[in-house]
């Protein structure tokens, strides 16, 4: 339950942060969520990763669909992704997720070191 909550909150608040902050707002959000919802570091990392991954990949997929994959196809060809729209959506999710995961990991230690 905590795990699921962490994922959902990370995704939701990251989205909101994206309305006001630059892209790295996701790090602040993921760190804060992990500090507030106490989980083991591994789970915190995963929750942070999945939260942002789902948000970023989800948004990208949604945008891509409405765009008929016109731009994703081109950008995926500029990057070494062979013009594959799916690949660039996955990479988008992965990069965001990595940042979210590491930030959440940090946050989980913060919480733990507070109680010490």
């Amino acid at each position: 339950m905590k795990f699921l909550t962490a994922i959902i909150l990370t995704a939701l608040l990251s989205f909101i942060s994206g309305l006001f902050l630059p892209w790295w707002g996701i790090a602040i959000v993921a760190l804060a969520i992990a500090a507030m919802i106490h989980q083991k570091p591994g789970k915190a990392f995963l929750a942070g990763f999945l939260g942002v991954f789902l948000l970023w990949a989800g948004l990208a997929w949604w945008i891509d669909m409405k765009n008929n994959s016109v731009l994703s196809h081109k950008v995926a060809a500029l990057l070494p992704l062979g013009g594959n729209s799916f690949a660039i959506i996955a990479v988008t999710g992965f990069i965001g997720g990595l940042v979210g995961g590491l930030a959440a990991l940090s946050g989980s230690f913060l919480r733990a070191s507070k109680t010490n």
Partner: protein
Amino acid sequence: MRILPFAISAILTGGLVFALNKQWGSIPPMGKFLSPQQGFWQNAEPANKSFDADLKFPDLKGKAEVYFDDRLVPHVFAEKDEDLYFIQGYLHAKFRLFQIDLQTKAAAGRASEIAGPKAINFDKEQRRLGMLFAAENAMKEIEKDEQSKSLFTAYTNGINAYIGSMKEADMPIEYKLLNLKPEKWSNLRTALLLKMMAKMLSSGTESDLAMTNAKAMFMPDELKNLYPQVPDSLVPIVPKGTAFVQPGIKPIPPASADSIYLSRKDIATAREIDKPDPGNGSNNWVVAGSKTQSGAPILCNDPHLELSLPSIWYEMQLVTPTSNVYGVSLPGSPFVIIGFNDSIAWGVTNSQRDVKDYYEIKFKDKSKKEYWFNGAWTNSTQRVEEIKVKGGKTVYDTVAYTVFGPVMYDENFQGAANEGKGRNLAVRWTAHDPSNEGMAVYHLNRAKNYDEYVNAIKDFTCPGQNFVFASKSGDIAIWQQGRFPARWDRQGLYIMPGEDSSYMWQGFIPQTENPHAKNPERGFLQSANQRPADSTYPYFIPGSYITARGITIENRLAAMSGITVNDMMALHGNYFNTLAEDARTVLLKYTKETELNVDEKKYLEVFRNWDLQASPDSKGQTVYSLWRFALEDTIWGDDFAGMPNKDDWPETQTLFEYMLRDSAMKFADDIRTPARETLYDMVTGAFKKAAGQLNAREKEGLEWYKFNQPGVYHIMDKSKKDLLPFARAGLHVGGWGDIVNAVKGSHGPSWRMIVQMSSPTEAYGVYPGGQSGNPGSRFYDNYLDQWVQGKYNKLWFMRDGDRTDKNVKWVMKFKGE
């Protein structure tokens, strides 16, 4: 002891965020770039995006509406001129921001800010050519006149209004790729855009440096054969037989011209880095009602420029209570450049006239502070150009300005040449002179008849253009308009002495004496960059003329009657190779067929049976082209060893006319061999070489489009390799620079327009691109396929009553407060 793991993971997180927020080499900050809410995903425009908007800007004086049709062409209805051009600026910025930013930075010699150190020499040359100097002079002129200043300023305000309202997430993708931000607009930048066009069309129309080298290598009579002023087959713009008035000015050559100018054998040490494409040119023509099926005149224009995405043109309509004009505009400048209104239509082709000369300067010393002029040391003006470099130190370059103009080449800079001591060359260019071409176009947009058209264009000084004209009242006309120096014979062909005023331009050709024609008996007029008049025109008028297309167009129009719009579309797409028609006779004559093997004979048959069409699948055009390239290499290569740039060699037109005239043509001999070669040897040898190349490409196919390789590339991609996903290459189109359908690689008809002056006006147009500069928009290149297929869009000339028409897809409403 969780502090340590926290510190480590926090540092890792911070490090990752830092790395993803930084540009590494040419890779953009990937965190920013991939963010769905900030990065490139925000440029992935939904296919069903609505362009409706309700906008308020304090600069606006009244209310205005922009009606978009389904092609995203904006039809702007404003109450006042200022608002009209404010909105034009807003729209240019909204749809083409990166384009206007990049183009004007390049024009100003600021490419290094974007491309880094590799662009420094390009920027130096731009500054030394006086591009910024020219723009500053233009801007002073623009702001001198109350009305002009207010219109240009409104345009600038419109662009800045858009930039100011744009969120970072909405920035064009190119900024995100380059990790740059757009720069605010100013009247100076509009002036720079206009000077960019001036450079494109009037800075490569002279070949003074190359010709100075040719003069060092050849005798005067040889030069006349290699670079004739009037080609044998010329069909001039002004119909042959037209009488010209006595010249209002008769320049007199200085006494020293023969000794220190014409006979001098010093080579030009400098070489241009960035010379405009010699193919820059165009076609236009107009047919009178006497020759059309409808009885109304038809006007056509297709300007030939570098084809890019986004296109150099942006289609739009501009309407106020007192004016209504439709056509293409140049993002970066207000007004409609080519188009039509309620009463008239007009189009332009480049005059190709030489309006730029070089003068040799003698400085007192390295400081360049003084130069010898009219018997005394004269002070130069020193201008220090500051060139900012991305990822490098700012470069400073001091340029001396003389009575002629900036000293473009001196011992610190010889352009593309890196030879030790170089000649100091000042450049005299009409683009430097104060003028306000913009207001000429403003008045042309509103002209209602022939007299108003002539009045409007007479202040258009640089770059000189052939303005074709048609009116609803039935007039047709053409005017080669520009400010052209009055030259004595051969003045300005070569570098001239600059130590006194005796070689300076003695005046300009009076405007009324510019070549022009109105309502000729024969019922049509045309221009395709050829020499405007035959040798009876009483002035020396050198230029980089292109002869072949004018011949084709003239022959077609003369033969046609009951002309329809479809006939004009067919003429735009005409692939007939006029030059090859004559060339074939001479090439076959000099081929020693007995010396050919089986394969070679096969190719010769292809050539012999060829229908003379440069169509996309034509193999004959391929055989002809490879053959003539090889022939030019072999005939000129030895004689022009001192001039390695093939663009400077004699024209293909010249070669074939020479061969037709003179079978004992001396240049046939290869001066590197002891034997004495003849045209038979050269032509046959060239054919064998071409046959070898054809053989090697037989497997991929010899269809012409595979050699011509038509393609349209992103404006940032000069190499045509770095941004291929944003390009459209491998287009199935034929053509060449001397064919009416002048597609040559990534160069060609950047806009095709046909306007029939009936009531109501019937107009068609197409360009190889789309209204949006966003590669993520469905409007990025949506006209390209039509253009390839020779299809056109019907242009919707909206009127007040059409505001509720079902063709209106989106509406932008503007108001002041």
